[in-house]
Each structure stands twice: as C-alpha cells, then as structure tokens.
C-alpha cells in the first residue's frame, strides 16, 4: 500500500541500470519505516504505527485488533508482541533489545513470569479446564506487559504511567471526584464480597479446593482494586524521592570536584602569574585531570580503588600540597584500609581541608593524622595558624560547606570544624565503617 502523498519526493540519481534502481527507489521511499507511533498513540502506539506504515486509518487497525481478540485473545497477544519488539519512533532500540541488555530487569521479569505460569499450571489442573485458550493468551499477554513495563524507556514509562492514572479503576489516586471513588470502591467491594461468599460456602473435601482457590483469587482481586491507588501513589513517591536524592548527590559531587580542582588551580595560577612556566604547568595538569574526570571517570575511580589505600592517598595529598603551596605537611597514619566510595569522599574532604590550611591559615606547617579503627576511620587536619570565625565565612566560599561537610555527611560520616580567630583550625572527619 503506497502512500500517494509521498511519491512527489525527489528521486535519487539513477545508476547504470535504470530499471532495477528505479524499482528499489520506489520501494524505499514510498514506505515509511515500520515503528510504533508517538503521535496518536493510545497505549503502545502499535495501531497508530501500523496505520502509518500501511497507509490506512488508525481506527481500521484498531477494529481489526479488537476483532482479533475474539479469536481466543490472539489480537491481544499480537498487540503485546508488537509492542515488545517494534522500536518506538524516535528511540534507538525496541523494548526487547533494551531488556536483553538490562540483566536485572530481565531477571525480574523472567522470575515473575515463572511464578505466574507455575500458579496457572496449579490452578488449571484444578479448576480452569473449561476456559481453554483464553486463559493462556491473557496470561502470556500479561507477562508480555510486565516485560514492557520493565524494559520501557523513561519517556515511555511516563506515558504508561499517564495511561494508568487515567484508567478509572487503577488510577484515581489523583482523581478525587465521587465518580472516581465510586468506580474504584464499588467493584472492589463487590469482588471482595463475592470472594468471601464463595469462601464461606465451601463444603466437602474435593468440592472445597476449587472454590477455595477461586474465592481467594476473587477476594484478592477485589482488595487489589481497592488498594491500588494507595500503593501506586507510594511507589511513585518513593521513585520521585530517590530520583531527587540521586540528583542532589550528583550535584554536590560535581560542585565539590569543580571547587577542589578547577577553582583551586585558578587560585594557584593567579599566584604564579609572574612565572610563565608555572602557569603553563598548572594549566596543563589541570586540563589533563579535568579531561580524565569528564570523559573517563570510571577508569579514574577504578585505578584509585585498585592501587590506592587511605595512607597512600593521604601521602599524595601531602606531596601535592607541599609542592603547590610550599608548606610542609606532617602526615601520620595509624593502620590503613582500602579505598571505597566512602573513603574516597573522606580523602577528598581531607585534601580540601589541607589545601585550605596551607592557603589561608599562615601556619608554618599542617598536620594530618589518620587512624583506622575496627569500626571507624578518622582523619584530622590541623594547623596552628590564624584561624577564622565560622559564622562569617562568605556564602560563596563553598569549600567548607560543600567540599568538606556535605561530602562527608553524604557518606554517613561527620565533619567537625574547631576554629577560632588566632588559635588555629582543626578539621575532624570521622566515618563509621562496617566491622569486618
């Protein structure tokens, strides 16, 4: 079926064998790609997508699918299958492709389906012989939908959530009207009542098993409908909260890093303004470091983890600060431990504290003391310099708040800063550690 509207496209230049090329061109140009539609989609955009491809009206395809459902649910199964394996317009991979790459999502979906199938086999042998093919197709479709949900792109997931919200029975958490509540409560109560009624009238030994199962399932269905909005709301709140927290943590890490590296280097460059060689050296090393951090952060962390320990990383701080600020750093470590994310944050905060002390305190030396105990790791950074008033630190001086305090508290540690004008500063960083 060729969409007449597309024939007026310019045809590419023809080759040596005009006839053959022309045929291919017509085929390639005339047919839009087969994909799920975004525009006009009601559920997965399957019907709308097929309609575009076949050049017919969306409604026609929908009616065909609906009729297909009458054949033992084949239409439904076909719909879910297409949903799974056809790429959505504007996306790079189909849900099936995406799932095959997401091991965890795939595992969850596979196990859920195994459980459902086991349940079905159990019930089928007991009760559902008569209903035949329908049960299987509906079940397979449900499993397919489960896969769709697990594998959907974030964008499509939002779309599906919107559909669920609009559905009168499941959604309704947002809809507060009498009608919405009635739509939810009445079927819920009726189903629960029927289930209870069946359960109450059980008699005999074998006569009891089937009604017991059916009754229990109906009761369960009723309760699900009643509680669905509350449950969905909870899940959604949790997801949103987690997303928010992850975003906050990423932002803090980003600010802390930019502050530690780029801003510090700029200050160093400012100081070294007279010496061209120093400025070039500083700029180069900063550029290298920033590139590595931007484009290969995992490798950076991995090398840290593979080769470094707390003591070796603190020794690196000592070397760097002594070189960059010409201030002796006295380093004492008691015990040692491998570096994980938490320790990395602690080390980052210690580096910031040490740089601050070398830069601002005016003290002749800085002392770092680190102790690894069975249940905690502590680092103390101390100078005997001019100290400062914590309350008067300007808001744009983010070092103390972001690079030291937030960084450590985010990893479950504490950061205490003891200072007063004229009597030096000590930054105390303590991180609880699971006992090994």
């Amino acid at each position: 079926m060729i969409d007449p509207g597309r024939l007026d496209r310019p045809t590419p230049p023809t080759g040596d064998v005009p006839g053959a090329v022309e045929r291919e061109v017509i085929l390639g140009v005339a047919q839009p790609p087969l994909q799920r539609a975004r525009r006009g989609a009601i559920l997965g955009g399957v019907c709308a997508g097929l309609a575009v491809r076949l050049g017919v009206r969306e409604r026609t395809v929908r009616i065909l699918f609906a009729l297909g459902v009458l054949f033992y649910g084949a239409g439904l199964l076909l719909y879910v299958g297409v949903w799974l394996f056809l790429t959505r317009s504007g996306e790079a991979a189909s849900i099936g492709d995406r799932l095959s790459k997401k091991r965890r999502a795939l595992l969850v979906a596979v196990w859920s389906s195994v459980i459902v199938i086991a349940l079905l086999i159990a019930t089928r042998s007991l009760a559902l012989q008569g209903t035949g093919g329908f049960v299987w197709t509906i079940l397979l479709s449900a499993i397919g939908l489960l896969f769709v949900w697990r594998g959907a792109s974030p964008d499509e997931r939002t779309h599906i959530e919107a559909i669920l919200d609009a559905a009168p029975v499941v959604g309704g958490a947002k809809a507060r009207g009498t009608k919405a509540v009635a739509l939810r409560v009445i079927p819920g109560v009726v189903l629960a009542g029927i289930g209870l009624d069946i359960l109450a009238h059980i008699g005999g030994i074998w006569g009891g098993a089937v009604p017991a199962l059916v009754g229990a399932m109906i009761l369960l269905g009723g309760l699900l409908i009643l509680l669905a909005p509350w449950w969905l709301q909870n899940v959604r709140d949790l997801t949103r909260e987690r997303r928010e927290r992850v975003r906050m943590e990423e932002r803090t890490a980003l600010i802390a890093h930019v502050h530690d590296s780029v801003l510090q280097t700029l200050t160093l460059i400012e100081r070294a303004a007279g010496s061209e060689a120093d400025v070039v050296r500083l700029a180069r090393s900063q550029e290298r470091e920033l590139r590595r951090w931007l484009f290969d952060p995992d490798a950076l962390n991995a090398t840290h983890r593979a080769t470094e320990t707390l003591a070796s990383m603190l020794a690196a701080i000592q070397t760097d600060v002594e070189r960059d600020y010409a201030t002796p750093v006295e380093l004492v470590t008691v015990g040692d431990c491998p570096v994980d994310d938490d320790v990395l944050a602690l080390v980052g905060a210690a580096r910031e504290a040490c740089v601050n002390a070398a830069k601002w305190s005016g003290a002749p030396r800085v002392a770092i003391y680190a102790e690894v105990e069975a249940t905690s790791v502590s680092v103390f950074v101390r100078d005997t310099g001019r100290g400062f008033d914590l309350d008067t630190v300007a808001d744009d001086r983010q070092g103390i708040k972001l690079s030291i305090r937030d960084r450590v508290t985010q990893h479950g540690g504490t950061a205490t800063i003891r200072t007063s004008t004229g009597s030096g500063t000590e930054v105390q960083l303590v991180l609880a550690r699971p006992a090994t």
Partner: protein
Amino acid sequence: MGQPRVFLVDDHELIRSGIRAELAGSVDLCGEADEVDAGAQMILERTPDVVLLDVHMPDGGGLEVLRRVHHVNPAICFLALSVSDAAEDVIAIVRAGARGYVTKNISGADLIDAVYRVAAGDAVFSPRLAGFVLDAFAESDPGLAALSSDPELDQLTPRERQVLRLIARGYAYKDIGAELEISVKTVESHVSSVLRKLQLSNRHQLTHWASERRLS
C-alpha cells in the same frame, strides 16, 4: 636549673653549624664530634646533660655511640636527630635508650624545647613516632595479648592512647593538657610511661624491628 649542657654528634658540618646557630644562647654547647669513636669518648669525658645524636653516620651510626655511652653512664640523656622519620630508625634508637626523637626539619624553638624536656628527664615524641607507637600497640590482637609475658608493659592504658593520639594530631603538651583537662606534668608522665613501655616491651611489632636491625 641553668642551661643544660649539650653535646652534638653529626657527621655533616653544615648541619652542625645550623644547629649551633639555633641553639646558641639557649643552651650550653659543651662540644661536638663528627664520628662515632671520638664522639663516644668525648661524651664520656665531658658528661653533658643531653647528647644531640645524628642517627645516620658511618661505622654504626648514632646507635653505636648510644650503646657505648649508655652502659658506662646511663645518666646521660640522648635526643636523636634524623632526616628520616622511618619507623625502623625511630624504634631502634629509642629502644637502645634515647629519650626522644626529632627530625632535622624541626624549628629552632621546638628543638630547644625538646632539649630542655629531655634534660628534665621527660620524653620527646614526634607525631610520627606517636603514630607508630599506636600502631605497634594496637588493641586488636587478643591472641598476642594472651601470649604476652608482661601485660602491663605490652599494653597502653586508654589515657596513654589519648595522649599519643593528640601528639600524633600535632598538639603541643600544653594543648593536650587543656584538651584532656589534665596538667602538663601529667601529660609528661604519660609520655614517659609510654617511652618506658616502648623500650622494655617485648611486643612482636617492636622486637620485629629490633631483630631486623640485629639488636636483640
């Protein structure tokens, strides 16, 4: 007490002149030597209060000087000086009888303070040495504690541990006193007690260093 009489042993002329300049006027410098034999002999003749002793010298180093003097006249106090702060040097020389240990990058005022402290019979711990002692006397080996022949010598008290931690964090004795709400005198006695344990304890970590340096 007047100015302590100090004798200086170091094989580097530059270092000796530097230390001379730092100490001039604050202590009574009664002599110096640049090698082991002459050093040991002159020290025994002049009986200074404190010997400032370079750890690394040819013919056995500061350790050899300390040994020769110590078994003849244990009243002479030694304060070791070194460019390095490596545990093997520190532990060997302290166990041989030195009452303290400072690195050569110490400031003049701190060096004078250390000399006076040693002359008064106290111990001088650098932060690094304090850290090492904490490491060597780590609590977490009940097996070793059970094996130990003298638990009093082989373990630090909680208070001693606190004092050492603060030294390792770079606190001066008077700051430690203020922090723990005890007198400077008490801090000193804790440090001396740690020094005694460090010299006499047979803990594995300590004898390990000693045996490596063929000291035991």
